[in-house]
């Protein structure tokens, strides 16, 4: 399995033309670039976690580790004035962009970005919804930003979210060990220049005591359609909760599980080392959940094959032919098609998409991505039309 971080050299697939956004404003020249307002250069699908590769990737899309860190001697977000926040932003930005943490890091000032760009970053899991909104009432008046490694988008560092720094590393498939070692060394480098708020007793001090200690949240994005279809999902959720794990939807805290996508993550951050959390999740819990989903898939195939095929092909039909499509419907259909692809129910490879294409489509049908692809703002009704036509172009046999 290739592990090349640079995905930009991939050949475009047929049907790619037309949806491709404008290329980023020549990021090659300098190791680090700042994105000007109105254009976030992160849409050429470098996003490594969408590749559909890596261990257990038929079920487990991606592994994510995030660290909550605060700078010593600085007020946390609730108490910090605008000036304090500006200072935190300036110091962090100044240093992060010089540190050569990764081959190429871009910076986005979120207070200077358009709502559409911010929504785009949320959809790509590069910033949180809260970070997009900012503190206070005016999202354009709260100094905050994000540094993103491009083109792989494996690393993102939010400044002035709930904590001064929120560092995240994402990888495709089950790869928490890798993601942890990525972020661990990044964290070391940052810490060699910026003092963190830390106490021997409580560990890394965070604005919310639920994150204190390691400040680490490790999570996996899982696609669990067969467990839903067989009605076993509640069992998994209950078991996870019994083990102090959180189960959330595609877009994290408080979000719905659209497209049968779920995030499972640790909640305990005090009294448990990072290695132990990795081991618990990667060595034990996650493979079990994956195996459970696979078992449910085999069951479906053995006992309800025609019914399942019918659902998958109907979903395919809707995606390839519908004229109006809202986000939830598209996600639900893509979920079934993804299931069909992994189970070999959609057989001829030349006609049907690979896992990576389906993963990417799950992002492309989101409102901000759709508008970015079309190149202008659309209201809800226009989006339904544009979404259906994008899906037809990507998946339909006749490209009409």
């Amino acid at each position, binding site marked *: 399995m290739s592990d090349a971080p640079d995905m930009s050299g991939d050949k475009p697939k047929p049907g790619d033309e037309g949806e491709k956004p404008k290329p980023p404003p020549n990021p090659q020249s300098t190791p680090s670039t700042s994105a000007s307002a109105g254009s976030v250069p992160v849409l050429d699908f470098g996003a490594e976690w969408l590749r559909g590769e890596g261990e257990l990737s038929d079920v487990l899309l991606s592994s994510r580790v995030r660290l909550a860190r*605060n700078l*010593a*001697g*600085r*007020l*946390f*977000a*609730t*108490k910090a004035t605008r000036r304090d926040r500006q200072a935190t932003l300036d110091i962090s930005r100044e240093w992060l962009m010089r540190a050569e943490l990764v081959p190429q890091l871009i910076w986005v000032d979120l207070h200077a970005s358009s709502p559409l760009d911010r929504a785009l970053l949320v959809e790509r899991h590069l910033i949180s919804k809260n970070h997009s909104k900012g503190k206070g009432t005016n999202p354009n008046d709260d100094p905050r930003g994000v540094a993103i490694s491009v083109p792989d988008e494996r690393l993102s560092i939010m400044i002035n979210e*709930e904590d001064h720094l929120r560092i995240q590393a994402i990888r495709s498939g089950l790869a928490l060990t890798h993601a942890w070692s990525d972020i*661990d060394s990044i*964290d*070391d480098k940052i*810490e*060699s220049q910026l*003092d*963190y*708020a*830390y*106490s*021997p*007793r*409580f*560990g*890394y*001090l965070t*604005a*919310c*005591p*639920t994150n*204190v*200690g*390691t400040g*680490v949240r490790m999570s996996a994005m899982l696609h669990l359609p067969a467990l839903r279809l067989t009605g076993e999902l509640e069992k998994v959720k209950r078991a996870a909760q019994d083990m*102090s794990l*959180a*189960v*959330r939807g595609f877009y994290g*805290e*408080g979000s719905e599980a659209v497209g049968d996508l779920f995030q499972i993550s640790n*909640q*305990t*951050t*005090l*009294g*448990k*080392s*990072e*290695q*132990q959390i990795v*081991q618990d999740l990667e*060595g034990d819990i996650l493979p079990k959940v994956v195996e459970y989903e696979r078992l449910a898939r085999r069951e479906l195939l053995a006992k309800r094959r025609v019914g399942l095929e019918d659902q998958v092909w109907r979903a395919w039909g809707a995606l390839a032919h519908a004229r109006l499509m809202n986000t939830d419907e598209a996600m639900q259909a893509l979920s079934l098609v993804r299931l069909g692809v992994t189970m070999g129910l959609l057989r001829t490879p030349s006609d049907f998409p690979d896992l990576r294409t389906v993963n990417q489509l799950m992002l492309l049908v989101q409102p901000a991505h759709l508008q970015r692809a079309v190149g202008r703002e659309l209201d809800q009704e226009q989006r339904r039309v544009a979404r259906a036509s994008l899906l037809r172009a990507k998946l339909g046999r006749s490209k009409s």
Partner: protein
Amino acid sequence: MKCDHCDKDATVHELSVHNGVKIERHLCEQCAEQFGISVRPQQQITDLIKHYVMKQGLTPVVPPMAQPMRANQCPACKTTYQDFKQHGLLGCSDCYKSFEGQLMPLVERAHDGGQTHVGKTPLRASRANTEVDDIAIRALREHRMERLRVLRHELDQAIRDERYEAAARLRDQLRQVESEGGVA
């Protein structure tokens, strides 16, 4: 089944016994919320804290060695415990010391009983930041000893049961914890 109070479908069912009399209530989500029955399975973390802290009531647990006796306000950032209750967020790193007594039950609950930090330590945690707290260190050590004890026990068990894969994993964990001891 319809909600007892409106025309919507009842999704929340409550059975309570008062003086030996069974009382059933069938409510829709909205009505249930009005009656103070929480139905949302995934509460926001801040709500959780708020509810938890609210339940604790206003009487602060006086920390055993509270240095500044104004336990209800952090001297460094002027955050009050009331503020924390409202937002679920602390104002600065000193808040952890200022509200230690009040925070501890909440912290333990949020972290499955975890009381002291185990894991990564900043390479150059500044001295000012890490004024060594004897109690904390002792607690840390005790915690480590307890973990070592549990791990050794599990390892013995695994070997007895001939679960060698598990045993190998436990051995690695043991080494890990032992090496952490060297640092602390």
